[in-house]
């Protein structure tokens, strides 16, 4: 097992404000703080528009934060964005592949462009082709592949430069059950290899199955942070769906004081649970 003492990803009071013509200033991310560790799957759970993707885009240096700081493998996302990108792989529904490249060319292209040592590129491509069972269709153009095959090539692309941190933003969106299960299996394997994985989803069952710790995000704020058992203990709910709803209702002020139960006494809406990372 990898050393869990050192945080590979540190997020501190991260903020992102957009200006929208109709809504004015929108605080998409509003003071998020969390750490992630090697060999850990950290889940960001939230409804659509909660701020998960914006957070992950800031971590992957696609967006610049409006406030706060974050680092990946010790590299600050604002001061050293290229080193950050060298240390992470980013997979999301909006990171597509080039349709005219073959599966193998795709992996090779991303291995090279991510600065993997030139003399080891072919060896790395072979490793990834073998690992994800791409050999059979490695010479097929991406636009001719099935969605399951594309998914494998996409994951291989994300891991091309063997980064220690991997971000999966809603990775199972649009996938059928079999492919979604395959994705979950890959993430588990990566965790076993000691990679730090940040997993964002609004699908409760996946988060329940995969994540060592869960951060519940709502309207850009981190409502809670802890293991599933800790969140259960705080809310008194068993299912993650209920846990999530409990926190969201509290944040929205929908439930009364009497209904809040044990969690209400410990954590007001918007507060975080103490970081109890393993």
């Amino acid at each position, binding site marked *: 097992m990898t050393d869990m003492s050192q945080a590979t990803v540190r997020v501190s009071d991260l903020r992102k404000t957009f200006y929208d013509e109709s809504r004015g200033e929108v605080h998409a991310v509003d003071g998020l703080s969390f750490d992630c560790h090697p060999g850990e799957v950290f889940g960001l759970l939230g409804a659509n528009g909660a701020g998960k993707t914006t957070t992950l885009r800031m971590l*992957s*240096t*696609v*967006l*610049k934060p409006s406030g706060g700081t974050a680092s990946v493998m010790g590299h600050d996302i604002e001061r050293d964005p*290229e*080193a950050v*990108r*060298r240390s*992470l*792989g*980013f997979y*999301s*529904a*909006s*990171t*597509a*592949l*080039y*349709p005219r490249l073959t599966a193998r060319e795709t992996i090779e292209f*991303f291995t090279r*462009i*991510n*600065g993997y040592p030139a003399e080891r590129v072919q060896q790395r491509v072979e490793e990834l082709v073998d690992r994800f069972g791409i050999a059979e269709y490695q010479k097929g153009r991406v636009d001719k592949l099935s969605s399951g095959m594309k998914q494998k090539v996409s994951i291989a*692309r994300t891991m091309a*430069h063997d980064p220690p941190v991997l971000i999966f933003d809603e990775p199972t969106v649009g996938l059928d059950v079999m492919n979604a299960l395959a994705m979950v299996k890959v993430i588990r394997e990566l965790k076993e290899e000691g990679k730090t994985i940040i997993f964002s989803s609004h699908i409760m069952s996946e988060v329940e199955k995969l994540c060592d710790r869960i951060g519940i995000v709502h309207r850009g704020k981190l409502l809670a942070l802890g293991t599933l058992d800790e969140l259960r203990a705080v809310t008194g709910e068993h299912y993650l769906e209920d846990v999530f709803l409990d926190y969201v209702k509290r944040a929205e002020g929908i439930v009364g004081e009497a209904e809040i139960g044990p969690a209400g006494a410990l954590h007001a809406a918007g507060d975080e649970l103490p970081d109890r990372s393993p």
Partner: protein
Amino acid sequence: MVNGILIPIFMYPIMLWAVFTGMTFVQGINDGFVSRLAVDGPPPAAHSMLLDTIRGHERIQVREDAADPSVWDAQLAAGELDAIVSFRPIDAGALDDNFAVAVLYDRAEERSRQARERVRRLVDDYRTDWIAGRAESLDVDEAERTVFVLVGENVSSSEDIGQLLLGQMLSFFLVIMVALGCFIPSVDTTAGERERSTWETLMTVSASRSSIVTAKYLYVVTLGMVAGLLNVVAMMISMGAIVRPLLQANDEAIAFSIPLMAAPVMLAGATALALFFGAAMMILAAFARSFKDGQAMVTPVYWLVFIPILLGDQTDVNLSLGTALIPIANITMMIRDAIQGVFLWQWIGLTLAVTMALVVACLLLARQILKFEDFLMGSFDGSFWRFAKEKLFA
């Protein structure tokens, strides 16, 4: 590969062959038409031979039997008749029986225009013969009546004529093809990335943003240059193999060759143009969110290019201080002059400097634009103008 290399190589020979074959075919069809003429009344009796000549033409069919000539107007309008010919007396004083041949025809119809042309030639020939006959009867020989004639003598060599044609055509096509060569790659590397959702994929790779943008830019510039230069080579081959034999068949001696020094000037011109078109087109297309939008944004630039090209290509003015300051027109003139063997080095230098100044301006603008996160995330409704209004001029 197909757009940038194969099409330029094979397009011109095939295109020229198709155009000339088509023209010959259409000409053949037109020549084969029989012109349907209606003749409204005979000419003066002394000139009845003219009517006989018209009647005797193998491709003219004359109708003279209408009870009501107004029927012919309707037939002409309906395309059942090609022209109506009438002979109108002219009171020309000294000359008896003078008359005008009036041809009523439909200019919008090819057959009708051709009927008029056939009548005109017959009348011209008749007039020439009549004048010759009258002169003979008055004992005036041909040398006496042929006075004040214009005799033109061409001092241009066959090479000069070839260079004139090449200078006008190659400079025009080089500029157009460099622009066209940059067009699709500039849209593909920007708006195309957004449409395919590969934009964000690229933004998360560890290569620096500036190196990604530079790589894209160099790709666009290289394709623009290659497309432009390959087109020029293909055109030269086509001109030599297809156009020259056709022109020589008309007894026009033409030699297609260009001075050796024109090659580096053309290369420099194509490079400067590709750098400019690549930068300008990428800036505009980068705002679009789909390939189609990108094309729509870049197309006006492409068409605007024609104005300075025509200015530079269609005048006889050589490159000068004034013309060297007009973007695109200056490069067109520089290339045209070089092909025609005129090398005004100080203005060539100024032309390249002006174009490179534009390139630098575009690159500085691109650098400014890339600083805006909203741009990177595809905001501004895909509009450069909205971005300029809200960010640059705000």
